[in-house]
């Protein structure tokens, strides 16, 4: 057993059979949901991973990715040892290095960057729980430039829209009470294909209870197949539908008056503004008939306050996403669902003190991502802002990138802009488990142990049931991979920052934190999770109805938006529609893959090995295409995809095409998926930046079909 591993004993669970069986409770990391899992060993080898019945997120059942997580350990295409670049950036030519060589190379360059440009010239891009210690090392080094695509390429606009309205965001896991919803409205959210475990489980319970489900999507999603009302909306017009729904609720006085009177601010101004957005106004924009808009608005009103208009998660669509999210927040406010059973509950977490570290140095310059507060409502760091600062050298030079567990070339729009920024760097480090596209552009690649081989920081998420969860190693890494905490700690030591790591092994750190909260670390190791006391979830259970907005109320009319020069009540913006012969490119999630990170997992690859482009069957026929034929997609800037298999189907409108995200790899290291299927990340060169908060709207790409000879 390696020092880095520190494997817990599992022999005590052996069943005395010919095969020695054992289990270790841990936390899944195939996606960011962080479900509690129990890994099973057979003769000391990893056999299978199941849900941890004690864990409130998974309730003992993982999604297919978690169940297939075992493949991440056996994946032959993993990064195996540290690599130092030879040849030009992006050529994927490497020399194998020792950890000592690799980390010393990074530390030497980081020390030089600090001397030449200041510590702020180093940026960290990160995703997930494993990023915790890299953030710590970067804070200790002295940079404020730490960003994640999960903000400005994903859920950032949603949380800004909700914060502007209720004073709080939706967070993760979403505080949506799907389990108790009488009416559930999904706008583009494709639960069931998007396998956020708790959400899908609750969705299923909602179906079982006979909840009224309304699905708005240009594509007949799996969720649409479960819906009472399916609204096949024209892409880019969701705001018009939301405004018309609010118009009906106000005009027909179906909204929760008592709730709005008690908690609302600026309702009269809101109502006056909304009066113009009739269903008849919305019809030519959305393609949804006025009678259907009215009927579905009334359906929501019938079930209020247990009427949940889901805020979605990956909401960076059209560049007015914070305002669209605000419209969703306002619709929920009219239904009185915030703070009510079947709407949005108030989550709680277990209170565990931070480790008593020394104070971080104060950066001399503010973070570089949003100079002049150009995006005044950005409440997280913008990856695209750091990219721009790197390219322009303004407001100050960014000369080093460390990229942890996020494939920026797939996650961020306009790959060329990312590569241009990388060319400005003196240091580019990637920490990952597979040879992703972004790893191909690194100077130094550090192979991390997968989640089943490492500890991570404590999992403390806000949920209806407070809990603390522990990720701990089940098996050893097969090659020279190391856990993230070890890498971050060693790097800090080489940078002379060892005072920020007073602990030697992560178990010492974890034990200190857990025991400082009066909990037993040994119990946590044994069970993988410790539940905290339940707290009230809704206003009527005693949650105080406090809203952290400037007015202290739910802001139907937003003076702070008005003061910043934005619409105080959301308005409709007409987005460009595809020219004749072109289709809007839409993308979504596969139930068996998480972005590109699962693409070399042999178990999950077998479930879905390449993506398909969904094309309306009637349109396909006009092109002489049938399911199984291959086409290339070409965007309006001339970028052409790999050949991708056509799925000719009735399940999509004729003005858009759809594919699952994460395929079509250009990194040669991803052998099983190299050039298999198409990459939306490659095709999305055009994007719209949200003026409120800097998120990147990525549903703005139009493609034509290039028939394969």
């Amino acid at each position, binding site marked *: 057993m390696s020092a880095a591993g520190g494997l817990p004993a599992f022999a005590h669970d052996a069943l005395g059979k010919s095969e020695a069986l054992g289990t270790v409770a841990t936390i899944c990391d195939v996606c960011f949901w962080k479900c509690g899992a129990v890994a099973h060993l057979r003769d000391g080898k990893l*056999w*299978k*991973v*199941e*849900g941890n019945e004690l864990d409130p997120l998974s309730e003992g*059942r*993982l*999604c*297919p990715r978690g*169940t*297939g997580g*075992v493949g991440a350990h056996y994946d032959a295409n993993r990064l195996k040892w540290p690599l130092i670049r030879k040849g030009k950036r992006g050529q994927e030519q490497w020399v194998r290095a020792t950890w000592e060589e690799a980390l010393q190379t990074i530390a030497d360059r980081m020390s030089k960057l600090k001397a030449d440009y200041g510590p702020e010239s180093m940026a960290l891009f990160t995703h997930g729980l494993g990023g915790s210690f890299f953030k710590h090392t970067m804070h200790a080094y002295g940079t404020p430039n730490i960003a994640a695509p999960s903000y400005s390429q994903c859920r950032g606009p949603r949380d800004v829209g909700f914060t502007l309205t209720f004073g709080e965001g939706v967070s993760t896991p979403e505080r949506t009470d799907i389990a108790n919803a009488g009416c559930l409205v999904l706008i583009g959210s494709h*639960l*069931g*294909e998007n*396998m956020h*475990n708790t959400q*899908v*489980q609750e*969705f*299923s*319970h909602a*179906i*079982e*209870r*006979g909840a009224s489900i309304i699905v708005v999507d240009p594509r*007949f999603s*799996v*969720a*649409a*197949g*479960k819906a009472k009302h*399916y609204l*096949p909306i024209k892409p880019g017009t969701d705001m018009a539908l939301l405004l018309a729904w609010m118009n009906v609720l106000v005009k027909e006085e179906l909204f929760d008056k008592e709730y709005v009177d008690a908690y609302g601010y600026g309702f009269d101004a809101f109502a006056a503004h909304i009066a113009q957005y009739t269903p008849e106004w919305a019809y030519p924009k959305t393609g949804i008939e006025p009678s259907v808009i009215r009927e579905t608005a009334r359906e929501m009103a019938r079930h209020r306050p247990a009427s949940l208009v889901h805020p979605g998660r990956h909401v960076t669509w059209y560049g007015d996403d914070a305002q669209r999210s605000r419209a969703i927040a306002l619709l929920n406010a009219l239904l009185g669902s915030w703070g009510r059973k079947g709407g949005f509950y108030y989550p709680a977490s277990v209170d565990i003190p931070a480790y008593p570290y020394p104070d971080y140095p104060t950066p001399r310059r503010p973070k570089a991502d949003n100079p002049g507060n150009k995006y005044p409502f950005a409440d997280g760091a913008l990856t695209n802002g750091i990219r721009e600062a790197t390219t322009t050298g303004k407001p100050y030079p960014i000369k080093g990138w460390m990229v942890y567990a996020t494939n920026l070339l797939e996650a961020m729009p306009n790959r060329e802009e990312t590569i241009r920024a990388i060319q400005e760097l003196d240091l580019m480090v990637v920490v990952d488990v597979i040879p992703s596209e972004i790893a191909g552009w690194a100077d130094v690649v550090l192979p991390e142990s997968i989640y089943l081989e490492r500890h991570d920081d404590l999992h403390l998420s806000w949920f209806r049931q407070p809990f603390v969860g522990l990720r701990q190693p089940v098996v050893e890494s097969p090659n020279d991979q190391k856990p993230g905490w070890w890498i971050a700690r060693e790097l800090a030591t080489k940078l002379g920052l060892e005072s920020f790591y007073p602990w030697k092994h992560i178990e010492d750190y974890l034990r200190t934190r857990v025991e400082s909260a009066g909990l037993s670390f040994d119990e946590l190791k044994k069970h993988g999770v410790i539940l905290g006391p339940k707290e009230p979830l809704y206003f009527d259970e005693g949650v105080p109805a406090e809203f952290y907005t400037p007015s202290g109320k739910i802001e139907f009319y937003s003076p702070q938006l008005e003061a910043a020069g934005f619409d105080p009540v959301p308005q409709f913006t007409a987005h460009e529609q595809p020219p004749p012969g072109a289709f809007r490119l839409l993308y979504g999630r596969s*139930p*068996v893959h998480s972005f590109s990170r699962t693409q070399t997992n*042999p*178990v*999950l690859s*077998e*479930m879905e090995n390449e993506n398909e482009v969904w094309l*309306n069957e009637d349109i396909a026929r006009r092109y002489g295409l049938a399911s199984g034929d291959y086409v290339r997609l070409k965007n309006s800037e001339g970028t052409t995809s790999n050949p991708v298999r056509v799925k000719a*189907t*009735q*399940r*999509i*409108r004729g003005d858009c095409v759809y594919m699952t995200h994460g395929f079509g790899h250009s990194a040669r290291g991803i052998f099983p998926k190299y050039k298999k299927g198409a990459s939306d990340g490659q095709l999305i060169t055009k994007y719209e930046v949200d003026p409120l908060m800097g998120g990147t709207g990525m549903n703005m790409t139009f493609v034509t079909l290039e028939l394969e000879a």
Partner: protein
Amino acid sequence: MARFGMVIDTAKCVGCMDCVVACKTENDVPDGFCRDWIATEVTGSFPELSMEIRSERCNMCDNPPCVYCCPTGASHVSEFGKLVQITNDKCIGCKACLAACPYGARFTHPDGYADKCTFCEHRLREGKDPACVSVCPTFCMYFGDLDDPNSEVSRLLKSRKSKTLLPEAGTEPRIHFLTDKAK
């Protein structure tokens, strides 16, 4: 002895393939093969569509053609749960059962014998549900004794509308699909 069967609620199934993945890891199903799979049927034209998603596998038929055609007795109905099972070392790999099964539930294992879903007999003997049932994140699969009128599966079949696959084949499948909306 029990007569085990499954009831699968198509109203809840989302076709996520968790059942397929779980079966593969639980049973070491070789690469390129699976013992269970997802079937999706779409009817209508956009946007007036309906869709049924089913998790499918060996139907553990009460009238099993695979057993009748087996020349060696490898395919048999077991005492335990009255399940259709295969004794690997009796199987000569003649593929008669593959041809006889109207559901395409069998394949030839790379080691030469016919293979298919066992309902995870090894788990049943430990009092657990089959792996596919136990992992399903939509709770759409139910397992139990069809001969016990008080079992969950029996009660679901009494209270809900259901169907079996290819009833005209006369195989009397023991996997039932609920086709109405839950209430």
